[in-house]
């Protein structure tokens, strides 16, 4: 993975010093709350319900063992012994104290970690495929490009005060696992006829109040122009994006207002002035960065390991875990393992300091010293020899990291919701817990099969509810928590925004409603048809009528009265 040179170290350290001084001035009363807000946000610091929340960047989701150990250490010493991995591959600490944040950042900097631009109206952490470099369907490794973009976007002087936040995601595979179509800028790596990489450019995607999929503004951007083109696109956004209404300030609104063709034309016009200028990428720079993502020293292994096959035959729980949590690898004899951060009773994406340490130990011993964070809020060991899977499973299981439910109901995505987040309209963790409890039975879950259930505690949509086969959105009605259900969302190549099925449910009704939706599926599915395919085949009506075909809470109250 990318290692800092003296430039990177100096820049990140300078940021720590700068923020230490800003925090000092704020605490001394020299910087008002309003003046301090954008400064702390661009260092990942929110002021939330219980106090500050610090969002630490995990650039494109990649962590070394030393980094994860540092995060474990920091969560133990500066927080309450746990952290929350987010849908944007970052880590959030919910219980930090403002005066100590500069010290946290200084410690993170030693491990080549930071919280730069993880919030605020600027270019955010670049995300990518958690199977980058190991997926069999990979066209080109997205990580060097993500790192090049990370550097270019860090402390970009022109784009630190954008109309609204700006998110970039890159996919280098035929299957999009980075949700590039719901980002402000989505980049799909492709190869041209000569085998040279480039990008299909999607612009104006995003969830939130107005969920929209990104539209193609350029079919193929040769790699040399990645930075100049992105800079041109950002300049058009910075100059012409709406600033009168925060809800209409994302790039998607500008792209929608202008039309993708006109927006693309304005970007091209701007780009012509910069194209082939000094910011044009060089072979030397790409080679320098790409060399740091070179494949590890894989052993020459047979694709099937006999011991592994025997364990699969003899140990059913292991086989079930392998079926769900172990993914194919492009190198023979290796596999990618998902360490699940989902289980009933724990917030999705939460990991204790001890779990982080176990995950780091497993990575050190069995996966070349690296891990990834997935946008489904799990940890990934990307390079595990198949012969070690049984041992990895045992150790993961004893640390509570082996729920055999990847892609199933329990693997649901949820934001922290109103339990922690100052923006939330309703809690999401209670809903997540109730659903996980209702469907705890593994046979039942495996029978239901693949189903993406995503929960957001407010319309900002951090839980990506629009993309869930079942989406749940918390809304506030006169101080009460209600939940709106959407159906039919998809992520990936066929990304699609789910449709709201009708009036919202009270918190106590949500799990029943979800179970009724699943009941329709179980009763009407064909063979091994997945939930989402069944929704596509029979349409929403059957689900809708099942969801509402019961006495509502209000009606029950009336009856009881």
């Amino acid at each position: 993975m990318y290692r800092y040179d003296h430039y990177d170290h100096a820049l990140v350290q300078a940021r720590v010093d700068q923020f230490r001084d800003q925090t000092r001035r704020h605490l001394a009363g020299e910087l008002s709350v309003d003046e301090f807000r954008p400064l702390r946000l661009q260092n990942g610091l929110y002021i939330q319900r219980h106090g500050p929340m610090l969002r630490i960047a995990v650039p494109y989701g990649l962590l070394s063992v030393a980094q994860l150990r540092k995060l474990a250490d920091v969560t133990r010493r500066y927080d309450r012994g746990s952290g929350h991995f987010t849908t944007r591959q970052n880590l959030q600490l919910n219980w930090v104290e403002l005066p100590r944040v500069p010290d946290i950042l200084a410690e993170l900097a030693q491990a080549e970690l930071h919280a730069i631009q993880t919030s605020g109206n600027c270019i955010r952490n670049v995300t990518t495929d958690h199977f980058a470099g190991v997926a069999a369907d990979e066209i080109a490794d997205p990580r060097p490009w993500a790192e090049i973009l990370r550097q270019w976007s860090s402390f970009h002087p022109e784009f630190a005060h954008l109309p609204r936040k700006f998110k970039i995601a890159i996919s280098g595979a035929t299957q999009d696992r980075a949700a590039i179509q719901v980002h402000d800028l989505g980049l799909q790596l492709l190869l041209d006829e000569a085998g040279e990489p480039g990008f299909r450019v999607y612009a104006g995607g995003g969830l939130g109040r107005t969920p929209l999929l990104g539209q193609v503004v350029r079919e193929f951007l040769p790699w040399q122009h990645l930075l100049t083109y992105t800079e041109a696109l950002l300049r058009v956004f910075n100059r012409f994006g709406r600033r009168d209404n925060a809800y209409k300030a994302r790039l998607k609104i500008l792209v929608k207002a202008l039309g993708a063709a006109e927006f693309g034309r304005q970007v091209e016009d701007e780009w012509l002035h910069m194209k082939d200028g000094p910011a044009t990428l060089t072979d030397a720079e790409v080679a320098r960065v790409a060399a740091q993502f070179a494949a590890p020293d894989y052993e020459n292994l047979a694709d099937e390991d006999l011991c592994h096959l025997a364990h699969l035959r003899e140990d059913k729980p292991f086989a079930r875990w392998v079926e769900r949590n172990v993914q194919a690898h492009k190198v023979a004899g290796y596999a990618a393992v998902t360490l699940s951060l989902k289980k009933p009773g724990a917030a999705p994406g939460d990991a204790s300091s001890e779990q982080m340490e176990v995950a780091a130990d497993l990575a050190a011993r069995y996966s070349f010293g690296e891990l990834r964070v997935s946008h489904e809020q799990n940890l990934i060991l990307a390079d595990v020899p198949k012969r070690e899977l049984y041992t990895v499973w045992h150790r993961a299981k004893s640390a509570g990291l082996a729920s055999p439910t990847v892609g199933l109901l329990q693997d649901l995505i949820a934001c922290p919701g109103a339990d922690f987040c100052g923006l939330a309209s309703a809690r999401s963790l209670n809903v997540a817990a109730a659903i996980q409890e209702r469907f705890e039975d593994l046979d039942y879950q495996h029978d239901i099969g693949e189903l993406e259930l995503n929960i957001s505690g407010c319309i900002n949509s951090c839980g990506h509810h629009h993309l869930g086969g079942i989406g749940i959105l918390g809304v506030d009605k006169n101080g009460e928590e209600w939940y709106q259900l959407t159906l039919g969302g998809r992520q990936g190549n066929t990304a699609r925004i789910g449709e709201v099925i009708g009036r919202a449910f009270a918190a106590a009704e949500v799990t029943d409603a979800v179970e009724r939706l699943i009941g329709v599926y179980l009763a009407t599915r064909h063979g091994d048809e997945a939930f989402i395919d069944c929704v596509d085949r029979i349409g929403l009506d059957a689900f809708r009528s099942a969801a509402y075909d019961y006495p509502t809470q209000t009606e029950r109250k009336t009856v009881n009265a």
Partner: protein
Amino acid sequence: MHKLQTRQIIKQRRLQDDAWKVVTLVDGEAPFDVCLPVGPLLVPLAVWKAKKACLIHREYEHGTPLGIWLAPEDNPAEIAADIDDFTVIAVHFPKAADGRGYSTARLLRQRYGYDGELRAFGDIGRDQIFYLNRVGFDSFLLGEGRSAEDALNAFDDFPDSYQAAADQVIPLFRRRAA
């Protein structure tokens, strides 16, 4: 018409007294009707367009240097043809969060080739200086109550920068490789 008080500014990393007055239009005032006080003036884009001849005359006859200020929404392309006429171009930041002026500055410097004094004024202070300087501003009239002395320290907040901008047109990756 309202004239903002002039005071000390930061210019080329030093504190200096400044005599430029900012001319603003009051609501409903037609750009052509603005009366121009004596001394060096920063006029709004609309006044420049309406009274260009008069302003240039002042310069020729009285040696009064020309200045203009741009609002966040003003298109710097509109003064591209006149750019060498100005001694000072100022860009207003009504709110620190409105970052359009950063793009304006880069366009003035890097596209339209302006090499005179480029001034930022409005809701700016120590914590904006580093980026403002990078996009091409070399003079700064800070917002009310902001310490200019303190702001002088901000120019060196970072020892280098990854990306190209007006102050360093060669990105780090090209210098790093060398």
